[in-house]
């Protein structure tokens, strides 16, 4: 056989193998899922769940793609614009309602039924159930709440109670002033009462939570912005006072993780944060953790016009695109994902941050035996109290019907609210002037988008 003939035979053999592999692959239905948990532990748990699912469902393959939370919206935009949709995806709650209103999502009633509707926390059902057509279009992969995290040792030093959360903003301000101190006697403040994250998203978060805690909302029942109304103006006044007395001068440049570093290193006495940060404290403030000096308040203070506090519910839902490649197979996978053992495996990868959506898992002995709970059960207990009794709501949503507003993503993505706060808190602008400008900008944006209904 000549070398040329040998090459030809080898080529033919390779082509035959490739064709065979291609045929085998074509026989599989490949379900693509995007989720927002790129940490290795969660990706590993997902990989195990997927492997078990594929074993139980020959002919279906599941590809997971873990996307940084901050990149999800952009990737979704591109997918929607180009039609290259995944089958199942995590998203923001307001995105779910917007997409379902456009008829892009497959109802998940069967997935909810498989989990057990009665077993799911009410806030999750309110979030994912669309009363207009009586369907669920999403189901949170896990939930969690924003809580007030504080250093008990600093509170004790300041003569403050470590068990009683402040009930009003006035009381909270008094506490934070006492916690803003010069610790080394050089006449300069080196510990601030509170550390807030400065990027726009976090300012939006604080603004809507405090507005809700002050008896207000960001949009009225017709969708018109309400930025110039008393509850929002009072939030701006409160924020200004807070910045003047108790926030570091560079608070606008503090990232979310910087605030955890501030609490861990003693630069701040209080922060607003999520359960994922516990690992941060274990790494950078092991002594404080060992001494039990990290605390979480199970409630937040209310403003002068408010009766109940509002805090944020972290609740990214799974959604399935109706026009994805394999929506039914994606639904089958989600049913498998929520099966008790699989779901527990997933939840236990970030146990303090991932609060399960099902009540039954809360009583599960294997779940309760999660090792992290030895140190951090108080954090989960605080979340349980808030979820069961205080109706936390997703970002930018002060009333449940805000979920139906089609322009929440655009307002959240704009700098309108952030500028309003910055102009007052840092720029010294009168709250009403800044609010009026924000109101005008928001009304114009909503009008430009074609969503004006008032």
């Amino acid at each position, binding site marked *: 056989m000549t070398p040329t003939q040998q090459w030809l035979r080898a080529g033919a053999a390779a082509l035959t193998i490739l064709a065979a592999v291609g045929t085998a692959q074509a026989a599989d239905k490949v379900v693509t899922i995007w989720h927002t948990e790129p940490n290795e532990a969660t990706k590993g748990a997902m990989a195990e769940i997927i492997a078990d699912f594929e074993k139980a469902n020959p002919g279906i393959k599941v590809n997971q793609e873990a996307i940084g939370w901050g990149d999800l919206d*952009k990737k*979704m*935009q*591109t997918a*929607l*614009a180009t039609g290259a949709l995944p089958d199942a995806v995590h998203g923001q709650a307001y995105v779910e309602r917007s997409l379902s209103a*456009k008829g892009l999502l497959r109802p998940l009633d069967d997935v909810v039924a498989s989990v057990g509707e009665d077993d799911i926390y009410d806030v999750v059902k309110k979030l994912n159930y669309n009363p207009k057509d009586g369907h669920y279009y999403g189901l949170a992969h896990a939930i969690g709440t924003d809580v007030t995290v504080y250093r008990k040792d600093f509170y004790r030093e300041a003569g403050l109670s470590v068990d009683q959360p402040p009930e009003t903003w006035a009381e909270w301000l008094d506490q934070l002033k006492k916690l803003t101190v010069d610790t080394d006697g050089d006449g*300069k403040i080196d510990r601030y009462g509170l550390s807030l994250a*400065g*990027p*726009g*998203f976090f*300012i939006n978060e604080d603004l809507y939570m405090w507005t809700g805690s002050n008896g207000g909302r960001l949009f009225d029942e017709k969708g018109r912005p309400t930025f110039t109304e008393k509850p929002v103006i009072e939030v701006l006044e409160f924020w200004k006072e807070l910045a003047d007395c108790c926030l570091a*001068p*560079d608070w*606008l*440049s503090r990232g979310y993780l910087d605030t955890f570093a501030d609490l861990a290193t003693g*630069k701040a006495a209080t922060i607003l944060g999520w359960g994922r940060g516990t690992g941060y404290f274990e790494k950078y403030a092991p002594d404080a953790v060992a001494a039990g000096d990290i605390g979480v308040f199970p409630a937040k203070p209310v403003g002068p016009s408010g009766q109940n506090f509002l805090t944020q519910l972290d609740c990214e839902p799974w959604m399935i695109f109706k026009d994805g490649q394999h929506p039914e197979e994606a639904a089958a996978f989600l049913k498998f994902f929520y099966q008790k053992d699989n779901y527990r495996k997933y939840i236990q990868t970030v146990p303090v941050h991932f609060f399960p959506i099902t009540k039954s898992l809360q009583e599960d002995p294997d779940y309760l035996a999660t090792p992290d709970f030895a140190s951090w059960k108080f954090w989960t207990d605080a979340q349980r109290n808030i979820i069961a009794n205080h109706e936390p709501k997703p970002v930018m949503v002060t009333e449940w019907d805000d979920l139906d507003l089609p322009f929440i*993503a*655009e307002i959240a*993505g*704009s*700098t309108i609210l*952030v*500028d309003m706060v*910055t*102009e007052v808190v*840092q*720029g010294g602008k009168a709250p009403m002037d800044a609010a009026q*400008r924000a109101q005008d900008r928001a009304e114009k*944006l909503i009008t*430009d*988008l*074609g969503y004006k209904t008032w």
Partner: protein
Amino acid sequence: MHDAVTQAQTIDHSEPLPRGRRIPEHWWGYVLLAPAVILVLGLILYPVIYSFWISLHAKHAYLPIENFIGLDNYAALLDDQEGFWRGLKLGAIFAVSSVGLQLVVGVSAAMLLNESFIGRTFARGVALFPYMVPMIVVVILMRWIFNDSYGVLKYLLQASGIVDDPIVWFSPDNVMLTLILVSTWTFFPFVVIGTLARLQTIDPELYAAAKVDGAGPLRRFYHVTLPQIRNVLFVIVLLRFMFMFTKFDLIWLFAGAGGLGYYVRTLPIYTYVRTFGELQVGAGAALSVTLFLMLVVFSIFYFTIFRRDEQL
């Protein structure tokens, strides 16, 4: 035999092709140019034209909303004091200040590196280092260095007695200055490279003659060096201004769009917010086309001034 073949080839070439199959000589030029022209049209002109087309629409980023509105997006910019005009002003402050400092530092460093001293080659390599560092690394490094609690800059300034209280570099009042300083550090090697290359080609006899005429270092710089590097500086200023005026990554990574970013929200950042934050692709395209046209006008103006000066 060889002569016969040569003769035959000569005869073949001299014979005209049949009329219908003949390709005129000059067409070959077009054919050979075609790939490059198609590439330029496809990769440069098409996006510009498409951006302009999009800018004539009220177009959502991903929902199927697209209405032709003519020049309304451009008209809206004229009234957009806080977004467009403020962004233009902040961008001009950032670009002019940064380019000015880059020139001063870059030309000074180039002149120093043009002198003979031990370790010159090493120093030249070190001088180029900032330009090679990825932007995200620069931002992380500078966030540490400029930190008002534990940054090395705070330590140096206080230890040397220059300041008593630490400067909060990332406060609303200082963030623009901080970004200008960081961008100067990052991009001055670009000026060094161009200037140093030109300095090395200046005839030493010019300096010798100037010395004989009694010119000191400053006068030698003004009357010999500066005229010699003038053409290079012209190109450097043009390029650096365009790069800095459209700078996105440095500002975005340091400050984002909101909060601290409010104080450095230049036009590229504002364009991003309009396009990907507010999901108004049409309005964002109008901003980017305007930015593009401003740079074209600036370049034409700049070239005109330079040519006029050349003729004087």
